[in-house]
């Protein structure tokens, strides 16, 4: 059975795209046929983080609007055999993501035998974000140990629990908390919320803690998901989180 994993947060810039790239790469490396979809229509960035920006010909919206086939739009990763990327459109706006359109693409990906469909949600609670949430089986709530990020994560949890397809059918999306940009020294000094505090407040199971790390910028500079940097603290932390998940 295919599993739709949505990486979401509410607040912008907390590490969703970094985490989507890491999770997709990690799951694919573990042998699962995986696709990662950029839902940030109008502001695509996943292509850059994955290092495939020069290979984007067709995108997610082109497929929804019937201007390209899914096979034409899927970009096969050159480093990891089981990994494909579906880029977001740069030119269209978020309204191009119709529920039927998104559903038909997800159904087609399932048909093609993908085991994990990772959805990189845009910030906010508007169309792109709600569409990314709608079909989720699992949700990874990316949260920074900081008041506004925690509050926004709780709002996203509310949406997951009331508006997602699973919720509307009387079920529940499986929620995981991923804390990123964590600074243990500042936590020790009482200057930053601890992961236990954030877990307490949100009441969601913790799947991992990713440290604030210079390796993340280095990875994005070169277009290599940070999880492939086995020497780095963030890479190791992502690998641990994926191992616990997959």
């Amino acid at each position, binding site marked *: 059975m295919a599993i739709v994993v949505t990486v979401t947060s509410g607040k912008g810039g907390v590490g969703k795209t970094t985490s989507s790239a890491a999770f997709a790469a990690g799951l694919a490396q573990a042998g699962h046929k995986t696709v990662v979809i950029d839902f940030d229509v109008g502001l695509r960035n996943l292509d850059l983080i994955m290092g495939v920006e020069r290979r984007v010909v067709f995108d997610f919206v082109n497929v929804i609007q019937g201007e390209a086939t899914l096979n034409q739009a899927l970009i096969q990763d050159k480093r990891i055999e089981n990994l494909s990327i579906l880029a977001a459109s740069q030119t269209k706006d978020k309204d191009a993501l119709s529920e039927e359109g998104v559903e038909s693409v997800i159904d087609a990906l399932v048909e093609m035998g993908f085991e994990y469909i990772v959805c990189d949600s845009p910030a906010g609670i508007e169309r792109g974000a709600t569409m990314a949430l709608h079909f989720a089986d699992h949700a990874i709530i990316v949260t920074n140990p900081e*008041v506004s990020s925690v*509050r926004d994560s709780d709002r996203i949890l509310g949406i997951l629990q009331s508006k997602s397809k699973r919720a509307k059918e009387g079920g529940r999306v499986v929620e995981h908390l991923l804390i990123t940009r964590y600074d243990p020294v500042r936590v020790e000094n009482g200057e930053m919320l601890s992961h236990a*505090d954030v877990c307490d407040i949100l009441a969601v199971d913790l799947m991992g803690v990713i440290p604030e790390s210079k390796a993340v910028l280095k990875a994005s500079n070169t277009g290599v998901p940070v999880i492939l940097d086995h020497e780095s603290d963030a890479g190791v932390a992502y690998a641990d989180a994926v191992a616990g998940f997959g």
Partner: protein
Amino acid sequence: MALFGLFGGKKPSSASAAKERLQILISHERNNRSGPDFLPDLQREILQVVKKYVAVSDDQVNIRLDRHGDASVLELNVTLPER
């Protein structure tokens, strides 16, 4: 700062302030979410009525809806200023 160290006590940290504020805020927001859509409006209107008679600030009026089995209880808390 040295003083705090001297007496073995810990300086109240900004992280614990963050935690406390978040716990209050989030429980409030969750309560609003789980309640009917009119709850925020009801709260605003009750606040206006109370203000006609007593000088209270917004955070001194607290309204919540709790479920007890089949029934819902609307609880209104107004902290009146000392006089």
